[in-house]
């Protein structure tokens, strides 16, 4: 069934299709808005995009020659993770001796990551010395080609630091933290002036209360780079000014910031801001470790259009329990899904997948699955300003898709598993195939 009125259509297809190029995904429940709507989606293997099926039907009088029956499963846009530090033993913040090894490592992560339903993401570099940015950023930029077999696609890097507040460093090494005293020039000297373009750096996390930060933020918005407030002890008022200056995102809400107090709400309080302020989007780690489920629900209730689930997962994602080397000679302990720094109990990122976060989020908040899906598709795409091509099932968008199986466990909790993944219109992962091998 075609979802009447929910899929916008354009007046004319930009090109002529051959039935052999088109795939009809049928018997799906389409994640559209806040509802799962029974329907079909047409995609084009050669353009890698979602097709305006009605217009092609009437004006080109063709139907797709290939039909994939999804058996009533959920069809959602591919998931988007805007904070991922690495995985499968590879770390985006650690340069390798040979540049080729780093390139290979990123490509390996891309191919693994897509199997988790994440089709595009922001590879994240934590606070590092200047040479790290110089060496690693070129391999973390947006790819120039559209190759489905490359796996998950970078939407540009996320530089988390080093312009953070040393009192809220979390696991970032304090010795590399610095204030952006010269505004955008400070950023250029650390990241490299040529890297200050959204194709290379999509987003920068910085502490807005640091000297020079507000000036850097307004320059970044002119460059089209997202400023996210985080690792910060900004007060509510400081955050209010930061948002007025161009901060549109908050990095992992509740973590590495002043905790909300009813007379001093801090960064969290910005979710209740009025005074004509456009409230920022906010990342939140719904791994059942970083934030209590109750506060995830409170945040979403306060500003549902801003919720973006992030994993903040790192290279231990997919590895067994144990002690692992960390950057700058420190160590991280992995116990199940929990990662802690050294022998202490400072939380050090996560090793959770985004679909697990989504499952937790839906169970904790009681929102519909479709509304939950928005927090990992449409909302991050809007935050990045790419909602016309990512995070949506509308015609013209990239055919990056995930097929989810929905089940209810013995405890009555929702379970979500990734059944299939499409990248640029090509099926690149099928859980059923793996099971048959």
């Amino acid at each position, binding site marked *: *069934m*075609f*979802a*009447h*009125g929910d899929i916008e*259509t*354009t*007046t004319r297809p930009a090109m002529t299709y051959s039935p052999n190029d088109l795939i009809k995904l049928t018997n799906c429940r389409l994640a559209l808005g806040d509802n799962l709507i029974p329907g*079909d989606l047409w995609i084009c293997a050669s353009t890698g995009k979602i097709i*305006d*099926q*009605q*217009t092609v*039907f*009437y*004006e*080109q*009088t*063709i*139907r797709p020659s290939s039909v994939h029956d999804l058996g009533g499963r959920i069809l959602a846009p591919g998931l988007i993770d805007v904070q991922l530090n690495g995985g499968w033993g590879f770390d985006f913040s650690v340069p390798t001796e040979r540049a080729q090894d780093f390139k290979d490592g990123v490509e390996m992560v891309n191919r693994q990551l897509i199997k988790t339903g994440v089709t595009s993401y922001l590879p994240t570099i934590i606070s590092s010395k200047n040479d790290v940015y110089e060496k690693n950023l070129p391999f973390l930029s947006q790819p120039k080609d559209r190759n489905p077999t490359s796996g998950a696609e970078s939407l540009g890097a996320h530089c988390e630091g080093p312009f953070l507040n040393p009192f809220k460093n979390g696991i970032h090494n304090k010795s590399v933290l610095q204030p952006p005293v010269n505004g955008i020039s400070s950023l250029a000297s650390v990241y490299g002036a040529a890297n200050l373009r959204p194709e290379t750096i999509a987003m920068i996390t910085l502490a807005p209360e640091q000297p020079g930060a507000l000036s850097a933020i307004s320059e970044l918005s002119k460059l089209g780079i997202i400023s996210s407030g985080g690792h910060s002890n900004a007060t509510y008022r400081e955050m209010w000014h930061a948002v007025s200056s161009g901060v549109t995102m908050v990095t992992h809400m509740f973590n590495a910031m002043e905790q909300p107090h009813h007379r001093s709400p801090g960064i969290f309080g910005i979710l209740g801001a009025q005074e004509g302020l456009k409230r920022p989007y906010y990342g939140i780690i719904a791994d059942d470790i970083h934030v209590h489920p109750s506060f995830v629900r409170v945040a979403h209730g306060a500003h549902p259009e801003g919720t973006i689930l992030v994993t903040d997962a790192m290279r231990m994602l997919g590895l067994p329990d144990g002690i692992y080397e960390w950057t700058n000679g420190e160590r991280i302990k992995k116990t199940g899904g929990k990662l802690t720094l050294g022998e202490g109990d400072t939380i050090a990122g996560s090793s959770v997948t985004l679909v697990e976060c989504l499952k937790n989020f839906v169970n904790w908040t009681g929102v519909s699955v479709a509304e939950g899906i928005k927090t990992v598709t449409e909302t991050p795409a809007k935050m990045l300003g790419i909602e016309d091509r990512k995070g949506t099932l509308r015609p013209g968008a990239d055919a990056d898709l995930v097929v989810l199986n929905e089940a209810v466990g013995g405890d009555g909790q929702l379970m979500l598993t990734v059944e299939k993944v499409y990248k640029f219109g090509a099926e690149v992962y099928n859980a059923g195939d793996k099971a048959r091998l």
Partner: protein
Amino acid sequence: MRLIIKENPASASEYVANLIAARINAFKPTAEKPFVLGLPTGSTPLKVYSHLIHLHQSGRLSFRHVVTFNMDEYVSLPSSHPQSYHTFMYTHLFSHIDIPASSVHILNGCAADLIAECSAYEAAIRSYGGIDLFLAGVGADGHIAFNEPGSSLASRTRVKTLAKETLVDNARFFEGDVAKVPKLALTVGVGTVMDAREVVVVALGANKARAVKAAVEGKVGHWETVSVVQMHPRAVVVVDEDATTELRVGTVRYFREIEEEMEAGGAGVVTAKL
């Protein structure tokens, strides 16, 4: 004329879908000799379409050799607009069945030359040898297609100005703004419908009761264009109980008895049973 009275909208719609399926299957259509079907839009045929889809999906009906002609379309509304009849038909029927896209005909309200578009539409119908079955709904005021009160009973496919009442009524589909409702439509004429070898009119609900009275008990006239079905050699009017409330008791009883006779097989007429 036959008047078929069913208990509720669902049973009436199912009857109509079964009747259409029986006609198509009995016709044994082929690529050379397709079955030609006229189709309406609106809320009335929705359940008919969903039952046709069900019949198709359960393997009892194929549209591979069916050619369709729709009744009408707004002028200047892009075919991809959510309220266009193109969108309606794609959403509620064509996307779910096996009809070839090239067998579907809907008037193009965005054509540069609307008069030529209308003539070409009539010519296309003729090229298939005419319409085998025209399914029609009826407006509360007794109009069929966009042939509103006063339309010529001999009219052909043409451009029509919509009545103010229709504009106001349709504003709910255009963000409640009458100014956004197209003022013109292309529509098949009363004569075009009458040329079909069989006409099936569906009317559901109490607000269609006056139209049903006009169709069944009224005099033939251009004020309720649906009344012209009285002149058709093979017309079926299918209604639910609520749509009979303006009919005389005797009328209802008369048609019920006839149908009971037919159901019993006394008249030897092909019924709508699959």
